[in-house]
């Protein structure tokens, strides 16, 4: 332990603790902006400066280590002045339209500025840079809001290994831009949206599609349209955070009510098509294992569009190893505009299919040219993030805690426990394994204790299971940096798997780039637990037990991986273009 004094308060902190840790231990934490532990410890914003006794120059608390006997002041005049001036300097280059800004509640700059007794007199000329960005792209960067904390650059570099962002310009013109002088639409961006959820302000955001749904020209305002909404598993674990409500209040059933109040005609659940995905992908996997033909291994899951974009741009030669199954979002759209349209007797062209996703990449996925198999325009028309959905609920002044609970609509609102865990890393693998065991043995495995090795937040998990004499080597990874490590090991022949689940966002969809934002808090773990609780509380724990999915096969599709399934629920991942990587791994990493 190291003993230091903070504002006269003696504290003992473990060896290697930062001064920031010590200020927290002493109960006088200093504010931070650019600091992101282990990822962006660059001491750029100078908001966390403190005074070290014996030194004239102020030092940053975030990236300096406590030494025995240090005497630190966080509240001297010099510190107060520096903190305030530096925040004013940041504000002088930040477009201040706070009331109209949808990061109003989660803006760390606003929080810090509010906390330090600013008055409304600005000492500096207010001059922010103009925005210059393609507003139709799913990921939008507002230069006018950027505070150049560089967190997006560091996160994309160190966690996602894509380095889409880079420092551009020099001197006082230094800012952030797309690396390699590219336009974002030409970049190998996976659209994971992690730069958005790690942006302390609203410099990075997802394209807002809410107006196309409930604006003047929106689908909900068109009496001819039947507007259907699907809600992804991970959304229910996080949406309450936007209203400061816990998962026991912000339930999936209150969410169904809220969406109905907004005016959606049918409120469905992506869990339905997650179960459908398992039927298709699990069957596809067993076919590959048993058909005696040559296949490239492993088979990769294909439900995460960020991962698919990553693989197509970074390792185009491996795209054939992806499962051909569409994502649950896409399957849902295809089924809605065929089976469901017929069921309710509506022209599929009159159906508007909306998805609520914890995801930014889903906005790009729905626009993939070959995902319009129902023959009525895009299978999914709009995808909004959890944050956009919460803004719609908020805009309608809905008091969530006062809502009654209602069920999702039938038939596309039925989902099993196996489907809801899709939202957590390892969930797709577990759901698939549960059903594969049933298909191979005719018996359900114990859903709570059989596949626990694939659960949890480790970035790269592996487990081998023996099912009816078949050995299945599985791996689960989340976060694209972890994914790259796994793929490099595969390419070098260091590891061998049969089935690999990949999620682009650390922790899976619960940690998705479309989820509510909390500065310097990673909530994937606790949100994942909410999903496992939903799973445990569901009477149906296996995708093959979903009665409405079974009805879909019986009434319409025939059998999993049958001809109609192949047409509607599977896709050719080579059927569209993804911008290439700036530099391929194989140029630098040997393949043995």
């Amino acid at each position, binding site marked *: 332990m190291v003993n230091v004094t903070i504002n006269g308060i003696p504290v003992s902190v473990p060896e290697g603790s930062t001064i920031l840790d010590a200020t927290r231990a002493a109960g006088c934490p200093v504010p931070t902006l650019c600091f992101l532990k282990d990822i962006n*410890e*660059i*001491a*750029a914003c100078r908001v966390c400066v403190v005074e*070290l006794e*014996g*030194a*004239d*120059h102020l*030092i940053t608390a975030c*990236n*300096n*280590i406590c*030494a025995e006997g240090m005497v630190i002041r966080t509240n001297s005049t010099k510190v107060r002045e520096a903190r305030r001036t530096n925040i004013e300097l940041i504000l002088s280059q930040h477009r201040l339209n706070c009331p109209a800004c949808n990061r109003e509640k989660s803006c760390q700059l606003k929080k810090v500025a509010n906390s330090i007794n600013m008055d409304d007199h600005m000492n500096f000329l207010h001059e922010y840079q*103009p925005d*210059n960005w393609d507003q139709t792209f799913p990921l939008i960067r507002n230069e006018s809001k950027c505070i150049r904390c*560089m967190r997006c*650059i*560091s996160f994309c*570099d160190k966690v996602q290994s894509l380095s889409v962002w*880079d*420092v*551009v*310009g*020099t*001197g006082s*013109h230094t800012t952030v*831009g797309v690396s390699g*002088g590219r336009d974002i639409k030409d970049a190998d961006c996976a659209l994971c949206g992690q730069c958005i959820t790690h942006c302390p302000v609203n410099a990075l955001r997802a394209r807002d599609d809410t107006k196309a749904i409930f604006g003047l020209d929106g689908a909900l305002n068109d009496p001819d349209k039947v507007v259907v909404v699907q809600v992804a598993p991970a959304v229910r674990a996080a949406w309450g955070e936007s209203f400061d409500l816990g998962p026991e209040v912000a339930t999936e059933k209150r969410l169904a009510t809220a969406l109905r109040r907004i005016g959606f005609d049918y409120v469905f659940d992506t869990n339905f098509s997650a179960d459908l995905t398992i039927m298709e992908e699990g069957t596809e996997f067993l076919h590959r294992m048993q058909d005696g033909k040559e296949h490239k291994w492993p088979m990769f899951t294909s439900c995460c569009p960020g991962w698919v974009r990553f693989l197509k741009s970074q390792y185009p030669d491996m795209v054939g190893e992806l499962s051909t199954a569409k994502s649950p979002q896409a399957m849902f759209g295809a089924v809605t505009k065929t089976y469901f349209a017929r069921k309710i007797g509506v022209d599929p062209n009159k159906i508007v299919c909306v998805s609520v996703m914890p995801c930014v990449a889903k906005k790009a996925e729905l626009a993939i040219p070959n995902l319009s198999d129902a023959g009525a325009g895009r299978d999914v028309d709009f995808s909004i993030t959890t944050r956009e959905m919460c803004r719609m609920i908020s805009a309608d002044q809905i008091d969530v805690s006062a809502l009654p609970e209602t069920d999702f609509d039938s038939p596309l609102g039925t989902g099993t426990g196996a489907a809801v865990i899709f939202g957590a890393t390892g969930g797709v693998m577990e759901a698939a394994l549960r059903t594969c065991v049933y298909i191979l043995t005719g018996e359900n495995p114990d859903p709570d204790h059989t596949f626990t090795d694939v659960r949890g937040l480790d970035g790269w998990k592996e487990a081998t299971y023996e099912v009816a004499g078949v050995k299945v080597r599985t791996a689960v990874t989340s976060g694209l940096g972890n994914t790259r490590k796994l793929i490099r090991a595969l390419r*070098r022949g260091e590891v061998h798997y049969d089935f690999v689940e990949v999620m682009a966002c650390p922790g899976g969809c619960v940690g998705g780039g479309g989820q509510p934002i909390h500065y310097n808090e990673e909530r994937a773990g606790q949100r994942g637990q909410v999903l496992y609780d939903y799973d445990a509380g569901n009477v149906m724990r296996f995708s093959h037990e979903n009665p409405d999915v079974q009805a879909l096969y019986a009434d319409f599709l025939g059998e999993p991986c049958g001809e109609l399934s192949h047409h509607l629920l599977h896709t050719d991942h080579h059927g569209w273009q993804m911008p290439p990587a700036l530099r391929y791994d194989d140029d*630098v*990493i*040997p393949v*043995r």
Partner: protein
Amino acid sequence: MSRLTIMSASQAQTTVEGLYTDMERRIQVSPPGICPVDLAAAFLKMCRAQTCGKCVPCRIGLKQIDNMIEDVLAGRGDMETLRKIKNTAATIENSADCALGVETARMVLRVLEGCREDFESHVKNRRCAAYVTQSIPCVANCPAGVDIPGYVALVEQGRYADAVRLIRKDNPFPTACAMICEHPCESRCRRTILDAPINIRGLKLAAVNGAGTVPAPACAPATGKRVAIIGGGPSGLSAAYYLQLMGHQTTVFEKRKHLGGMLRYGIPSYRLPRERLQEDIDCILSTGVEVKLGTGVGSGENMVSMEHLRSEYDAVFISIGAHDDKKVGIPNEDAEGVLSAVDLMGAIGDGLMPDFTGKRVAVIGGGNVAMDCTRSAIRCGAEKVSIVYRRRAVDMTAQVEEVQGALEEGAEMLDLHAPVAIETDESGKVVGLWTEKKQIGLIHNRRADVISSGAEPELIPCDIVVVAVGQAIATRYFEAEGIPIKRGVIEAKDWTAVEHAPGVFAGGDCVTGPKTAIRAIAAGKVAAANIDNFLGFNHVISVDVEIPEPSLRDHKYCGRVNLTERSAAERKDNFDLMEQPMTERAAQQEASRCLRCDHFGCGNFKGGRAKAW
């Protein structure tokens, strides 16, 4: 009332003079990559401040150019703006009354032409094409990328052995480099902004002197791959060292009697004692390198063929250095008594000391090698040594301290003397060197030409002429073996691979022409990494030395500790080491001057510390 007054500087003027010297130092260490448009705007502002304000083009025109460049920077400019900047600058150049305006306009025109892409990027793409790449200046400027702030901090703590281990992660010649490195690391040291660059080489010397024998790290499990290395100089031995650590078996084929290349056969022992060089070589060899001394690669006796190496080994690294001499091209250059620098230093390297007692020696050349020859000739007993150089002494490429050292030891400086012929007696022996006195002339491409002074040729009586005008590379054999040669050097990619010769790599002086030891070492490191990949591996070189946290105390302005040398009288008759290391106390103070750019500034962001390669 006084008819004349004595000029005295006001306090403001003194302050401004101080700022000038501060800014000069700051410009010296300016990091590469700064946006030229931004920099032009900044320089232009200073130039505007300097205008006397009398003449229209300078007073108003420069202001208008500044406005237009600011427009370009702010994204308000277009191609028309660039045209107007150019036309206005041309008019200022043509019509300003004095150099203040004319030269400022020329600066604008130069930057506009030389950095055209940057200007166009700003107006066409609204984007700056530049970005600063140098986050830790010393590391970025070290060709081998040695973790300099890391080992400086270790020296400050007296952890010398850890410092040596850290250096060896990127450079297996810590001792040699501590003594002879040209220390490009110091050239942009950010400490210069305060007072003067850190004496990095001096601190490295403190580290190697204080460390004692530090064993090499353990090698990775043997891969069964074999690599042939042609030439046991800094480049070849560096490659051998890292390849051994990666588990590959290397064999070094060295034509001469000893290892070390130019470190032994080019650098005199008064700068790098043989036993100190041997410390590095011993450590490198301790990793299991096989050595075949007296074995060249070629087609003669005691030689192995390239074909043999390519068939017997999994990869070949050519690092033969630049050991052939270059001629001046004057009559009688083959006379008895004419030596090349390579001959002289090579003989000394093998311990065959020439006896110049009572002889007069003329050394032709102005580079570091010429100075080494001069000072070695003095130590070999020469009565008189003259440095004959066609340009001015200030134009010499040799380091200033080398020239100064030679003069202190009694060498005669004959600059602006172009050699024209060697005079011989009837037996064909050298008796003198004819030179033509030159005069300095016009400047072209920032270098002053020399022109004839009109004086008659002058005979410098001498018994020995040493030609030190550069070295060449023995490429003929390799060319015949299909290795591409371009302008006298082996052609290799920047990752050391030789095109159309799979498995053949080349680096060091034989690729770059005669350059510094650290560049050759860096080439060996690069070759090792790429040969490893070529062999199908991806071994990572790292070291588990924990780097001390930086001090958070204020920096006081503090003088730089320079190394001292034994006095000229004491050193000029022997080949003993001239330089005297810093004391431990001085080293500690010098190390504490380090600004720790690895922690402060952008060193903790992109392009910062590389813990492994």
